[in-house]
């Protein structure tokens, strides 16, 4: 496994670009994490929580109909959507709250985009009886009302952040400000790998259980390693979680799928790795969406979890090393893929995950009948149902009004319409 240097650098990326007030807390956290890593009691307690509370190991299932439709490629799905709370996020939050307790912290804070990390943190905090404040962009509070209510049911306080783009990045700003102010008794449970050291390496390690399980499972069911592993990339926690076990397997292609939003050419997307430039945001140096003057550009994605202008430093480094390939999926392609996986495999994925599914369909076709493709189903779509219903209704309305204007004889749109695959990028 790739380890950053002692100060958290992955090549030129990562590090710690934070206000001085936080540096001692990051030092303390690094030390506590290093100790916990060496402590069999911590490992035992975490394993017990992951198996008996979170539902690990998650299964690796075959996507038979999807594979057949793609021309016979064998597609296996790593079912992180079956984790307690509905996504991979719980792997990390249980570990971090356990760590916070070891460190004697009395309060938990977190930021959340889609709400999955917020729910997973609120869940872990409830389990350990710790007070928890979750910062969430006001726009995401609207988009993810159900998850807001779930967090509140779990006893957390949800703080709607009104500044900036009112999304994940602004929620992180506000969570960092809270931490700067309350650092002595508060642990900040970060769900992303796009932050200061030690989080990128620590969150990756806590999520690496995904790839370790999947690697053993695929060897067991298929007798060989996959040709490619696909995961969606926002900050990159699920991608690093599933990729890390395969990094030494040079023949296994690692494919990260970023949000192309309304299309890469529109400027409204979340493709920091594909189109960003290196810079510093939220305490870490990595690829960023920024303008010529170094101001961070607002990202766009139909999925709140990918609506983020940055990405983890290790993914930035793996990109430069040529170890990962990048693809993108638009909002429309993700919506289509969500419906597709639901109809063909009986799984409604999260909108974030649907980006990976969209790319997986293409990749499976490219790999052909001898191919073996592993897709990380990072989360389930329950949280998105309302949002998806609204988006599909809006698209059908647009299609219907478009149809009225169109000359007679055009084929009417039925259900979610297929759009041309714009913005897909071949690996560079």
């Amino acid at each position, binding site marked *: 496994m790739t380890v950053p240097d002692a100060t958290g650098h992955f090549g030129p990326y990562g590090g710690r*670009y934070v*206000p*001085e007030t936080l540096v001692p807390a990051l030092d303390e956290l690094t030390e506590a994490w290093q100790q916990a890593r060496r402590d069999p009691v911590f490992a035992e307690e975490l394993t017990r929580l992951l198996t008996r509370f979170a539902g690990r190991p998650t299964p690796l299932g075959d996507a038979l109909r999807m594979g057949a439709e793609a021309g016979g490629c064998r597609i296996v799905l790593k079912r992180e959507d079956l984790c307690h709370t509905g996504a991979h996020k719980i792997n990390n939050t249980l570990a971090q709250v356990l760590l916070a307790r070891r460190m004697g912290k009395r309060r938990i804070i977190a930021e959340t985009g889609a709400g999955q990390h917020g729910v997973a943190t609120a869940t872990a905090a409830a389990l350990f009886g710790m007070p928890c404040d979750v910062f969430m962009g006001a726009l995401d509070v609207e988009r993810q009302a159900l998850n807001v209510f779930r967090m509140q049911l779990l006893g957390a306080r949800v703080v709607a952040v009104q*500044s900036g783009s009112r999304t994940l990045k602004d929620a992180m*700003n506000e969570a960092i*400000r809270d931490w700067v102010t309350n650092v002595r008794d508060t642990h900040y449970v970060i769900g992303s790998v796009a932050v200061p050291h030690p989080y990128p390496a620590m969150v990756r390690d806590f999520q690496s259980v995904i790839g370790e399980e999947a690697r053993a499972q695929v060897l067991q069911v298929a007798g060989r390693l996959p040709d490619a592993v696909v995961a969606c990339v926002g900050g990159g926690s699920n991608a690093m979680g599933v990729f890390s076990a395969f990094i030494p397997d040079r023949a296994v292609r690692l494919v990260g799928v970023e949000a192309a939003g309304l299309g890469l050419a529109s400027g409204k997307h979340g493709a920091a790795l594909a189109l960003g430039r290196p810079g*510093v945001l939220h305490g870490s140096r990595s690829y960023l969406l920024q303008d010529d*003057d*170094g101001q961070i550009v607002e990202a766009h994605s139909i999925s709140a979890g990918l609506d983020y202008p940055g990405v983890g430093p290790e993914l930035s480094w793996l990109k430069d090393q040529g170890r990962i390939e990048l693809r993108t999926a638009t909002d429309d392609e993700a919506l289509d893929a969500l419906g597709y996986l639901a109809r063909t495999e009986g799984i409604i994925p999260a909108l974030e995950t649907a980006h990976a599914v969209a790319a997986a369909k293409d990749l499976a076709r490219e790999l052909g009948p001898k191919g073996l493709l592993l897709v990380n189903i990072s989360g389930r779509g329950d949280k998105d149902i309302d949002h998806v219903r609204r988006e599909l209704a809006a698209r059908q309305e647009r299609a219907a009004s478009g149809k009225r204007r169109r000359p007679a004889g055009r084929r009417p749109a039925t259900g979610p319409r297929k759009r041309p695959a714009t913005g897909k990028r071949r690996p560079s």
Partner: protein
Amino acid sequence: MTSSPDRIRATFDAAAKRRGAALVTYVMAGDPDLATSREMALACAAGGADILEIGMPFSDPIADGKTIQGAGERALRSGTSIASCLELAAEVRRRTPAAIALMGYVNPVLAYGEERFLDACVASGVDALILPDLPPEEARAFRSAAAARGVKLVFLLAPTSTPSRVAAACDAATGFVYFVSVTGVTGARASLPADLGAKVAAVRKRSPVPVVVGFGVGTPAQARAVGKLADGVVVGSAIVQRIAQGGSRKARAERVRRFVASLSRALGR
């Protein structure tokens, strides 16, 4: 090309001679527009400020409280760029002998180009840089590039800083050390921590350069109290609030000048 003369050192030497702390004031460039912010900086100088901090706006100011966040948003809306911050500094330099320190976040500096930015600082008469999200460990190359040009770097310390962090910041700082008085973000506070004196004394004992105290200082009484502990006192949000109260450019400038003069008097001048 290096910046000359050493206005930062001269400022603190002069303050020490009159047995008082230096007064450091903060104005955000481009808040609400570039010309107004220039007049505000000059009003600070007219009111008796020794060092003029000029803020460079950033979209994601994680170390700032609501007041300076608001100023940054106004500045970005008015189209303030790094180039216009440098231009502002150059105009202020032509009209006052006070030392000038640019303060901002590191990403716009990286985007501008570190060496190009430092060259522009020299050309604009900027004496020092304060980048709160660039700790000494991440600043190695930048430190030597700044030293080669005579641009002073200021590093921050906080109440949470350990002795080894204090040593690192004191050894890296070439202009002064900026001690953050409160565990928190920028913004005026009703009261300052009781153990501030002991903390600042410990840093001053270790530091080869002057130590200023900021974050949370918003009244003449607080400035007087902090002035007894440190080599300099920084007032930011309280000035930004007075600019944000509105009125004509002239009315704002007079409001700021009077307030800064009251701070200056509180420091014994």
